[in-house]
């Protein structure tokens, strides 16, 4: 009789740990990602998505984020169409994701003034995955935390072809800014 009882207890422990984990998750569905690929004296190549979802597990520092490529808005509608059709192939690869961990994350140390952390993980764009390590500024807000930062990616790292004809008009390194208000 002793053995099943122990296993039952252990299972209960797992479930308890798991539900506690769920309670510690901070989530947003309205995160913001902007990218900038403009070259000086050429037409602006920039877009923004205001419906990025992201989740942070406060106990472990695990972090994940997902954005739909078709959700990026450009100033010029035609540029948006070409972005989806020719560059990102968003019908084949509808989303970009990030999955990783905020290193040495300790929710008790988060204050109202932003603190730098290292966010390490796998970034997947255009069906290609690449490990990245970026600095993220985390600060405390009501009911959660705010995570902001910026980093650069190269289109060729994600097999995004840029034809020679427009090579001059698109930056080699694309700057990505993100801003998430993650709440309970």
């Amino acid at each position, binding site marked *: 009789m002793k*053995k099943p009882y*122990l*296993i039952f207890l*252990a*299972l209960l*422990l*797992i479930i308890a*740990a*798991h539900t506690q*984990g769920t309670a510690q*998750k901070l989530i947003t*569905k309205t995160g913001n990602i902007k990218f900038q690929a403009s070259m000086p004296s050429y*037409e602006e190549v920039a877009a923004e998505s205001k*419906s990025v*979802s*992201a*989740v942070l*597990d406060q106990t*472990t520092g*695990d*972090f*994940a*984020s*997902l954005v*739909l490529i*078709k*959700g990026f808005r450009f100033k*010029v*509608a*035609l540029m948006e*169409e*070409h972005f*989806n*059709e*020719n560059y990102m192939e968003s*019908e*084949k690869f*509808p*989303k970009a*994701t990030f*999955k*990783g*961990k905020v290193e040495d994350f300790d929710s008790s140390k988060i204050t109202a003034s932003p603190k730098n952390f290292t966010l390490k*993980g796998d970034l997947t764009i255009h069906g290609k995955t690449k490990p990245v390590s970026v600095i993220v500024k985390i600060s405390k807000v009501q009911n959660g935390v705010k995570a902001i930062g910026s980093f650069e990616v190269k289109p060729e790292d994600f097999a995004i*072809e840029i*034809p020679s*004809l*427009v090579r001059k*008009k698109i930056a080699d390194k694309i700057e990505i800014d993100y801003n998430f208000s993650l709440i309970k």
Partner: protein
Amino acid sequence: MKKILVPFCLFLATLAYSQDDLLKSLDSTQTEESYSTATFKALQLVTLQTTKMPAKKEFYFVVSHRFGSVKDGFDSFFGLDNATTKLGGIYGITDWLSASLSRHTLNKMYEIGLKYRMARQNDSFPLDIVGYSVADINTFLEKDQYPGLESKHRMTYVQQVLISRKVSEKFSLELVPSFIHKNLYNPDIERDNQFSFGGGGRYKITKRLSVNLEYMHNFDKPDFYKNPLSVGLDIETGGHVFQLIFTNSQSMSESGYLTNASGDWGKGDFFFGFNLYRVF
């Protein structure tokens, strides 16, 4: 100890999987905008309109040429000496409504058009449906030649329903029923009301190149004219779309194209031309 080890490992395993779980938990939170986009590269397939609409406040400038018949050979340098031109603009009033105005060399024609989207292809509806209404004003007609000429005689109207489907990423199809009404016509060779049905398609060879083909069958056509059959190549270069064209109709206006195609492919009597679109 051993007994507790198994559940403990399980516990660790759930921790290890939690990153994946986090990402999966996000999957359901995002709903995709499911409209099919870029069914066609340009506002025109070859000479027919496509279901593509300008976005709100977008302005398209269009220059088109149809040269003379290739049949003439070196006499007119394969038709290049006898160019006809269309100059025009299209403005997106909203995302679903655009207005166009153009001037055609042939018959000194002004063409006014309205294009309006009625349905979009998405996960629950298989087709793009767009209405296209055109009025042509022929300013070539002279009162000296036709003493009884009234201004209404200059008018020709075309009503089309453009129905398209993006079948795959590369292949799109379009069907176009058209009704044409002419206030002035020659009863010996044509009718005032004509119905024409046909369509076309595009196939993308590369991301920025596509081959287009279109054919329209006119059910009220006299023997004198031919049905228009055209083939084109779309070349997209960022803000421009360049369309190279071979067609048996020199006329680029909707009514002229549908009812007055005069070239005969079988006899090598066809026209070279292009459409050039610039977006502002």
